[in-house]
């Protein structure tokens, strides 16, 4: 962002944020954890006939519909949380001031990484919300009375989003751990200070 605009904040920390640790990466825990586990439990639900013996062997009582409940409620929570994840991400990327001369492990500069991560974030939010609507139709309308609550194509779409999330997550990791965006110690080193002063 324009350095003069940044100055209007007045009390930004060394990390470039008005608070100690960035919020976006912490909300990402919720988005990814909830989404991945939602799809994982739908897969477990779909493959239930195969796994019955395993659950019996482990002495864990299980009903197929409960596995799909996890798939649904976790996905719903992920869809809601992800709006806040994207919101926090937009705010914090606006305050990012990475150096221009660094290249990431994927050969990208900071600006390209930030743009791809931003576009990816909105894309994944759209896909999560779309899949939640799709999942809701399967659960409450199309497959209401079926033992297997989700379509194979839904599982495939979930796995595709996993792949997108891997790319998105790596880009985000590059922003923090390679470009040092909002990392206090990295900013201090850039200013020629010793992080032991922290």
């Amino acid at each position, binding site marked *: 962002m324009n350095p003069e605009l940044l100055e209007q904040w007045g009390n930004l920390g060394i990390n470039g944020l008005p608070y100690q*640790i960035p919020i976006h990466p912490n909300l990402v825990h919720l988005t990814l954890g909830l989404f991945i586990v939602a799809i994982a439990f739908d897969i477990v639900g779909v493959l239930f006939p195969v796994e019955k013996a395993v659950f019996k062997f482990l002495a864990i009582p299980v009903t197929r519909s409960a596995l799909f409940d996890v798939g649904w409620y976790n996905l719903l929570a992920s869809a809601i949380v992800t709006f806040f994840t994207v919101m926090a991400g937009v705010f914090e990327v606006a305050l990012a001031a990475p150096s221009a001369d660094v290249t990431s492990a994927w050969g990208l500069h900071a600006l390209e990484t930030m743009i791809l991560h931003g576009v990816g974030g909105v894309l994944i939010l759209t896909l999560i919300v779309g899949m939640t609507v799709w999942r809701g139709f399967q659960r409450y309308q199309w497959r209401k009375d079926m033992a297997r609550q989700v379509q194979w194509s839904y599982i495939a779409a979930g796995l595709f989003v996993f792949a997108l999330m891997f790319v998105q997550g790596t880009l985000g990791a590059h922003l923090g751990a390679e470009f040092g965006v909002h990392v206090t*110690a*990295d900013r201090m080193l850039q200013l020629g200070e010793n992080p032991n002063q922290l």
Partner: protein
Amino acid sequence: MASVRNCKKEYFRTSQVYYSNFCSCCPLCFYTSSYQSSIVFGNTIPLFYWHYSKKSVFKYLPPLNEHNLPYPDTIHPIVVHFVIAMVLFAVFCDLIGYFTKNPKLYEVSWWNLAFATVSIFISIIFGQIEAGLAEPYAASVSTLNVHTVLGWSLSGILAIVTAWRYVIRLQEKPQLPIPYLAASVLLAGLVCIQTYLGSLLVWVYGLHTIPVVDAIRGGLS
């Protein structure tokens, strides 16, 4: 033992490019650097790594990259998604389920807890490897120690809460007991504290970020 006793920090630094420049309590030679006085279990790993890399099959371990890792990026912060999100969502579902008397949410909560319990042990394994390879500089050591101790403690607490939940679930009671709810809220609180400490290590102290790894290789201690 004589040669091992010589393993001063500088000796590590000059003798091997990658696994050399760290300093902590070494389980083989008992060398302890000046600032490292506490129980960071994780720091034992790279020393083993270093010692064994000199002699045995461990010398075939992959070299460390610019994050000081043998693989591209940190894995621990990824695996902890499945502890943080699942524990917090489980407790959330318990509370909503308690007040709305929706038994479906109790099942959602149980499966999330079970998933979190498996995940926490995997995240501890990666946490130990990455804490060990972090070569923390003085300012970050105490945070890393607290994060390590709380992480191991949480594995025990989470396993106990999940076991307790397993028994409650077998009893098929319509409502959760209040002591259980209290314990799970406490668990959620500890998870939040642990997440905060981990965030400090990454976003304030910058462990495993390239600029900090560069500085440590250049002598920051």
